[in-house]
Each structure stands twice: as C-alpha cells, then as structure tokens.
C-alpha cells in the first residue's frame, strides 16, 4: 500500500465498539476452540464437516 497523501481529517476511522478488536486473533481463537462435551460439536469437527456435507465448503 502506498503512503497516503490525504490531508488530516480526510481519512478517519473511529471504533464504536470493541476498541481492541483484532479479527485475526478472534477468528483463530474461535476456530481452535475444542468441542468439549457437546456431542453435536464433536461430530461437526469431523473432517467431513458434520451435518451439512452436501453444502459444505472446505
């Protein structure tokens, strides 16, 4: 990405929630979560994707 030449005030972003949000960290934590005692979760974590194989995206 090139350095911006925008004058001050032209590009602004203000977080309205979750100031420290980092989508990569959030997603990694969720995807690495263990299934625990949830029988439905264990099945869905199988390689085939679980319940909706015909609609699954790998």
């Amino acid at each position, binding site marked *: 990405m090139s350095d*911006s030449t925008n004058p001050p005030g032209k590009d602004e*972003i203000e977080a*309205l*929630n979750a100031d420290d949000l980092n*989508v990569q960290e959030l997603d990694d934590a969720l995807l690495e*979560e263990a299934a625990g005692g*949830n029988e*439905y979760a264990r099945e869905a974590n199988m390689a085939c994707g679980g*319940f909706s194989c015909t609609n699954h995206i790998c």
Partner: protein
Amino acid sequence: MLRTSSYTIYVALPENSEQMLLVHGYSGAYDKVSRGVAEYLMAAEAGPPPVPLYGEWQSEPALGRTEAILPPSDRTLDALAKRGYLTAMTVSEEEGHMARLIKKRHMRSMEQVNYIFMPSYQCNLRCAYCFQDHMRTKPEFSHLLRTVSREMLDRIFATFPTIEAKHGLPEGHGEARNIGLFGGEPLLARNRPIVEYLLKKARDMGPATFWAVSNATELHAFVGLLGPDGIGQVQITLDGPPDEHDKRRIRADGTGTFEQIAQNIDLCLELGVRVTVRINFDTGNIGDAPRLADEIVKREWDKSPNFWVYTAPIVPNENTSYKHTFGTWQLDQAIDELRLIHPNMRVIGRPDDGMQAMARKMFDRKRTMPNMKTSFCGAHNGMYIFDAFGDIYACWERTGDERVRIGRVLDGGDVEMNVGLEKHWRSRTPASNPTCRKCRYAFQCGGGCAVLAEGQKGKFFTNYCDGFADRFRHSVAMAYQDHVNGTETVEPVRVCDL
C-alpha cells in the same frame, strides 16, 4: 494485496454525506468512517458494492479503480484490516472462512437447551388464520386433542439428563432450565392441575423459569401459578381495538374475547407477570393500530415496566392472500408513519425495535459485541417441543404429525431420536445454503425462518430474507442518530421472533 472484505456492511447516515458507519459481518466491529475511507473501501470491493439506503453514495467510485482514490493513511489501513474490513483472502477463501466461523459458533449455540411443553393441541378459540385451525375443526384430527397425562410428563422429564448430556451439559449442572408452555392453548382452566404438576416436576429437578404463549382468556384460573416465582412471562395476542379484535380472536361460539383478555392482563400485571402483547398485522387491520394504542394508554398498561407490545406481519396463508400482507420492513415503515400523526402509537413496538436497541447498547458502550446469530431461532440448535403424546419436535410451526417429529419419548423415560430429521433441523445455518454464506448480513439475520423459506421457495435449505438488509441498516442508522441526540430508548421484551 488487500481487498475489501465481502462481509463489509455500509450504513449511510441520513442527511450526512461526509460520514458513514461500517459494520463487519463476522468480526462484529462497528465503526464510523469519513467519506474518503468509505469510498476507498467501495472501490476495493471485488464486486459491485451494495447501494446505500440513503444519500448519494451509489455508483461511485468506479469499481476496481482504487488508483483513482486517495488511499487512507497507513494507520487507518491498519485499523481497517484489524477490524475485518480489509482482507488478504480471496473471495472464495473468505467464503470458506465464513462457513467455518458459522459452524463453530453454531456448535457453541448447541450448548443451550430450551424446552417447550404443549399440554394439549386443544384451544377454546377459532382464529381464522391459525396454522393449527384444522386440528380443532376437522374430525380426522380430533385424536390430537387430548391432554398430557402425569405419566407422560414423568417420562418426558426423565429424558432431560440424556438430552442435556448430548448438548454437553453434565448431570446435576444446576443451571436454571427455561421452560415454555405452548399449544393449542396451554392455559385452559381445565389444564390447571396438569400445569401445576408440570411446574412441580420441573422444580423437583432443579431451578427453572417458566413462560407461556396464551390467548389469556382463562388466565384467571391460574392465580397461584402466575408470578415471578411461577409463570413469570406471558405472551398474549391482541388483534386490534376491541371491536376489531372480537371479529378475529373468537371463541368457538363466535363471541369476542377482548374484555376478558383485558381483565386478565390487568391481573397479570398486578401479580408481577411480564406481559408481552403481540399484534399480527396485515394491510386490512393496520389502520386500526392507533385505536388499539389509544385503548392501551386508556387502560394505563403502558405505565407498567412489565408491559410491552410488539408487532408481526401476517404471512400469506390459505386464509390471507399475499396482496393483503406486509413484509417486516413495510410493517416497520407503516408504524413509523402512523407514529408521526398518532402520538399514542409510541406504545406499539415495531418488529425491528429489538435490533435497533441492540445497536444502541453498543453505541452507548453498554455492550461490547453484537449478537452473532447462526440460525434464525432455537429450532436449529437446542429447542425441544414435547406434545401430549411424547412426540418431540424442533419447530412449533411443525407439530402434530409424527412424520416430522425429531424424536419421541419412550416408556421408562428413554428418548429415541430420528437422527435424520434431527440433523435436518439442527444443521440449518447460513452456511448450509450458497446464498446465505455469501451474505454480509448472515450473522445478523441467521438465514431467516425455515418454515417461511420452505413456504416461499419450496426448499428448507435456502434463504428467507424479508428485507433484512434494509431493516438492519435502517436500525443501525437510527440507533446511532438516537445515541448522538441522547434520545431515550426502551429495550423490548419478546418471546418469539416469528
């Protein structure tokens, strides 16, 4: 090379062409950005960006011409990437990522179990639009009208440890069970003994909260069971001011019910029960809404913190043509218009007031992250509906037919699940059809109602949008406007999203 995430939602602000809100569909981020930043993101979309709901943002800048747009500062680009709006994934990679996130979050949602009991399919009313009307009017369905026995209730409660273990809840977990009563009409006076037994059985097993969907015509028979320590919340339908309601919500002998219901609403509020009134609207009765609002104000129900009114559109059915029905977005707008000329309409909630209240909570910093829905309702995760025969259903719009039950209760309290049908219901998420998994609003919408999708398109695994994109963006924009203006809001209370 970074591109704009396919799940970026642009919320234009009315009468503000210099700023826009952004919402990210799977990170849960909400941001305010300058016009320059929004234009940059739109230009960096892989496909045509969505047309904003207000203002003159559409069709500019030209697709893909990021070299024509001054990029934001590195600091802003970094923030956009961290919050999800810029991604290095290709479109298909991101779609796969979205599907995995949906499935993971859906599995989390399966850890919650909710129970609904239908003591009987019998009802003392004959509302023309009732989806169960055939059960009370056609002789071939009369076998369905019996009331659940104590023996059957014992068996049903005996299944709870097995059901809860499947959802990852250990025996003796101690969490309060959420138990609803539905029907037919669950709170018929003749059902009091069995309802009392049901409450006792639930409490013998551990803490429990109770709610009911009731026509409220015989609630006076349940004094002693109603209240914060008993049936603490009741949803009641009113279909207009007294004269109009009495044409629709009628007893089997054709007589009206408004006054009896009104007395029972008073009773519930005195007993500390939270009362949610649901009003079903189509184009034929929306004009009566102001008179009902006047009636509510006259009876001073709106002064109680335990009273709330919400609205829902009647969907096309064999008794109501689509020509006379609203979509949810149209109903929101119809109520907005009526509020401009009838001040009392403030007491009648719009269908999307809840969505607006949720966004407002984040802007007021009363919550950090939004709800992330992986399904439209509990039919697709942990809802179990037991009827009087011990048949188990996932959806309260699909009951009374053993061919669609997801399981049944056996003698001795064992439970036998129909694995195929159970999976059919529990696997419907936005990831389970190609339209929803590409949608920016997937985690906000949940894929829409399965029953309505099937009714509209003949397919279960498909989308039912009901104008959600417009509704969401309008709700967020209005919530932000109210936040900036310091306008007071009230959080709605409701039992059901249908």
